């Protein structure tokens, strides 16, 4: 705004100058002030003048003249003096002596006037306009600008009384100066001030100044000044109008500070931020705090700037303070009187806080994540809109908190990522599109002895051995074209031992763009060796299994065949191998038999027994083959126990006994046929003997004896035939041979263990026992009532082995005499046994009864 050179018509004095320019004060007789009427008068302004020497109030009034004035007043009752006030203004004072009732001098009444005040005559409209201007405007009444009159806005802005004359043209510029003007940071000399320059006819346009008030307030202003000319063009004075740009300036500074802060990363940002806010707003305490994630009630100071230096509030829970409201999301500006609004806050009281600005810091989603607080111990100038400034910083601070949090989260997740990948025994890495490691886990240290972090940024080509890189490279290049790759390879290693590697390359995209490849590489050398060993041993097992001379099969717990060899498959052919049921052994129709040929119940199937945990051995099964021809097999089944002793399956072994069975049947048939022949032959011999001796001298007794011998032989034959001529049991033999001769009534007592005799021995024993029994019936113990026979035998151990000792003893028969010659029977006994058995046989004709003892080498006679 520019004021040109208005034509002024003098209409009267400026209304603000009237009355106020005059002050009255009372001095005691020593010249000290004891009362003033207008404390605001320039002569007294800003000072407590009561008690001080009146003379000291003056800047240039000489002591003699004051002293003269008071002395004159004492003499004459009144006097006039003049001088200059601390601002350099000319002041007139009239001094009047007051007397008390006794007419004694009491005190001086001094009336101070500013003789030039109100001398500038402005038109009424101009004066009104001037006063009403919302801008600071000042007028000087003389070309030298020795005295300046400001409007009410000026008085308010510069915090000085309306009537004060701001003269910069005085001998002592420091004394009582209400503000300084600076330009480009330097004090402006008095003669260069705009009002002074305008007084010399210059028009000052849009010059920027900084006004520093005595209380420290800084105002940024743009000044325009122009001369005031009279009707003849003579310069009467000058006028200056200022445009306040403090707010704009502060915002500029704030922006610059913010820019400055933003260059500082991390926590230092907040320190710079609070310093910048404090300096921009001139506030005593500024802090930025975040709401802790652990406890949303707690605020943690990120940075604080207190009384011109960094400080802190630590962690705190806002209570009964404006902060508590700000945390709820409200921006607060309390220009003054905070203490009255929050009377319960000890903190505010302690710091004598008067004004407060608090603004919440919001995350992108609107959540309050922290606050900025500004506290000052005097009122804050609302017109400077300090809240705007704080909010400029708030946006930036919120962003910074979020960034730090996400960084912390990222660091945390990276940390986890690293911890996880480090325990993986495989190589895990991220390789960027330039084939450089961007991440490598601890396995790289174990494999290559390379610090994983030192690998970051280094090319694979420089890390891997050339041979290894040659192997890896083609796969990597494919993966870097976006293909997911999995491969196994044998890679040479530094120590010369090649490693079997299994590698997986996973391309990684960010925002649709391929950023690199995650690589996972495991050492499967050990696995490979195991695999090879396993495969070899399995091969051996299979070979063994396949070539077993018997059928073998492994089943699961249900009897389904897991593995069977060819022999097994041919012995127990499946109806349908393709179906699970067809692979079940129970499905292969076979009937289990006892060794005697009886059919066993299904539950006795050897596999069922095995699956119940028992070993089943040598069970004969008749298998019904598809062609209708049945085959005999011998099956054994052994359970296979898994963990916790549960049966998980069974091993089934079958042997083809069809030939054996057939041979057995043939042998049985042959023996039966032979026996039939022998029997018929014996019958023929019987018939021939019977026919031959019928009419001769042979007695009937002789014939019967012959027949009985023949039948005894035949009976022994029967026994042997039943046993397939493998042998006969002595006990059974005794029973069969003696049965026809036993008179009953317990007269024949036999005892002895089961002893297997070979066929020849069995026949010899049969003949011998027959002769002894026949003799007993004819002449011995069985020939009379009451006689009895004891037949005992036992096996007795001797150094060479065992001997069979048999004793036949007759008692209770007629007295026995030794025969004159041995009959056929006796000779048969002695001979046949001796010849056949190599045994010693003795027959004793004891008068009490015949005794026969047989002593045979068991090895000779056993089957």
């Amino acid at each position: 705004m520019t004021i040109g050179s208005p034509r002024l018509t003098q209409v009267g004095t400026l209304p603000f100058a009237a009355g106020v320019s005059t002050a009255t004060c009372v001095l005691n007789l020593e010249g000290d002030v004891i009362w003033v009427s207008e404390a605001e008068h320039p002569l007294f302004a800003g000072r407590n003048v009561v008690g001080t020497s009146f003379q000291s109030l003056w800047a240039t009034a000489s002591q003699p003249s004051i002293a003269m004035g008071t002395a004159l007043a004492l003499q004459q009752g009144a006097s006039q003096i003049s001088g200059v006030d601390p601002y350099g203004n000319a002041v007139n004072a009239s001094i009047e002596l007051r007397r008390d009732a006794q007419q004694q001098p009491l005190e001086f009444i001094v009336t101070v006037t500013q003789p030039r005040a109100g001398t500038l005559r402005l038109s009424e409209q101009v004066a009104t306009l001037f006063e009403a201007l919302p801008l600071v405007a000042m007028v000087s009444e003389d070309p030298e600008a020795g005295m300046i009159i400001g409007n009410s806005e000026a008085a308010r802005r510069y915090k000085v009384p309306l009537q004060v004359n701001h003269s910069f043209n005085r001998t002592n510029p420091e004394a009582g100066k209400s503000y300084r003007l600076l330009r480009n940071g330097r004090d402006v000399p008095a003669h260069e001030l705009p009002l002074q320059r305008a007084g010399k006819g210059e028009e000052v346009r849009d010059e920027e100044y900084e006004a520093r008030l005595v209380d420290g307030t800084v105002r940024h202003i743009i000044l325009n000044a122009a001369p005031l000319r009279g009707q003849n063009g003579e310069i009467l004075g000058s006028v200056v109008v200022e445009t306040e740009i403090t707010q704009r300036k502060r915002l500029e500074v704030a922006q610059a500070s913010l820019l400055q802060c933003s260059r500082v990363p991390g926590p230092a940002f907040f320190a710079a931020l609070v310093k910048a806010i404090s300096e921009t707003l001139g506030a005593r305490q500024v802090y930025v705090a975040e709401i802790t994630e652990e406890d949303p009630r707690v605020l943690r100071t990120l940075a604080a700037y207190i009384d011109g230096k960094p400080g802190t509030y630590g962690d705190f829970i806002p209570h009964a303070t404006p902060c508590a409201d700000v945390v709820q999301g409200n921006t607060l500006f309390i220009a003054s009187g905070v203490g009255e609004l929050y009377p319960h806050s000890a903190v505010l009281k302690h710091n004598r806080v008067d004004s407060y600005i608090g603004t919440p810091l919001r995350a992108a989603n609107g959540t309050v994540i922290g606050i900025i607080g500004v506290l000052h111990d005097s009122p804050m100038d609302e017109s400077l809109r300090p809240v705007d400034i704080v909010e400029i910083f708030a946006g930036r601070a919120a962003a910074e908190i979020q960034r730090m949090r996400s960084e912390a989260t990222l660091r945390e997740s990276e940390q986890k990522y690293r911890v996880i990948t480090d325990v993986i025994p495989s190589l895990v890495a991220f390789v960027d599109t330039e084939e450089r490691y961007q991440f490598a886990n601890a396995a790289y240290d174990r494999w290559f002895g390379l610090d994983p972090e030192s690998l970051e940024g280094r090319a694979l080509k420089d890390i891997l051995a050339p041979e290894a890189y040659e192997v890896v490279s083609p796969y990597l290049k494919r993966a870097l074209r976006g293909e997911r790759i999995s491969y196994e390879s044998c890679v040479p290693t530094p120590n010369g031992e090649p490693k079997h590697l299994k590698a997986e390359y996973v391309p990684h995209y960010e925002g649709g763009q391929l950023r690199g490849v995650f690589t996972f590489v495991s050492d499967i050398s050990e696995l490979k060796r195991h695999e090879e060993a396993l495969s070899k041993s399995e091969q051996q097992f299979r070979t063994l299994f396949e070539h077993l001379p018997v059928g073998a099969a492994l089943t699961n717990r249900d009897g389904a065949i897991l593995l069977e060899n060819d022999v097994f498959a041919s012995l127990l052919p499946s109806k349908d191998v393709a179906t699970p049921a067809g692979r079940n052994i129970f499905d292969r129709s076979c009937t289990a038999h006892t060794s005697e040929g009886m059919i066993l119940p299904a539950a006795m199937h050897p596999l069922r027994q095995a699956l119940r945990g028992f070993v089943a051995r040598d069970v004969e099964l008749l298998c019904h083959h598809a062609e209708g021809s049945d085959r005999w097999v011998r099956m054994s089944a052994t359970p296979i126990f898994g963990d916790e002793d549960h049966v998980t399956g069974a091993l089934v072994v079958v042997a083809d006994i069809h030939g054996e069975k057939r041979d057995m049947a043939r042998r049985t048939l042959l023996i039966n046929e032979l026996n039939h022949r022998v029997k018929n032959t014996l019958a023929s011999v019987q018939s021939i003997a019977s026919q031959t001796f019928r009419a001769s001298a042979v007695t009937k007794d002789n014939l019967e004896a012959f027949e009985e011998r023949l039948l005894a032989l035949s009976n022994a034959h029967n026994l042997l035939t039943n046993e397939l001529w493998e042998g006969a049991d002595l006990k059974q033999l005794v029973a069969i041979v003696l049965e026809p001769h036993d008179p009953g009534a317990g007269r024949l007592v036999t005892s002895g263990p089961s002893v297997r005799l070979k066929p020849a021995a069995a026949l010899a024993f049969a003949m011998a026992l027959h002769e002894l029994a026949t003799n007993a019936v004819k002449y011995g113990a069985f020939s009379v009532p009451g006689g009895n026979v004891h037949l005992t035998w036992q096996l007795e151990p001797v150094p060479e082995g065992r001997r069979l000792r048999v004793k036949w003893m007759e008692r209770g028969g007629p007295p026995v005499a030794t025969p004159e010659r041995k009959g056929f029977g006796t000779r048969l006994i002695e001979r046949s046994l001796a010849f056949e058995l190599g045994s010693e046989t003795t027959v004793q004709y004891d008068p009490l009864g015949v005794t026969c003892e047989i002593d045979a080498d068991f090895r000779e006679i056993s089957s």
Partner: protein
Amino acid sequence: MKRAFLVEDEGVVALLIESMLSELGYQVIGPIPRLAKALDVARDEQFDIAVLDVNLNGSASFPIADLLIEKGVPFVFATGYGAPGIPSYLGNRAVLQKPFKMQQLAAAIGEATSQRGTA
């Protein structure tokens, strides 16, 4: 006089059994050595007891036994095979194991005759 039907393919043995049956008081029909002829005789002749050899020159004499069961005439097997050579449906019949004594033959005939009552 009771009549006994003898089927036996071995001459000498037949002679012995014939004399045993005579001594036991039977008029002997036969001996018949072959199956076909024996079946005819068994069908046509009337007799009180039959003594059957099992193996008639390679043919089993069981058809005769079947016929006799039909006729209700008791019989005794006389065989070199013994009891195991007889089919199970005939297993409860009296079987004589060759060679045998006349007393054994008499006992077997007694057993067979008494069995008829219960059969």
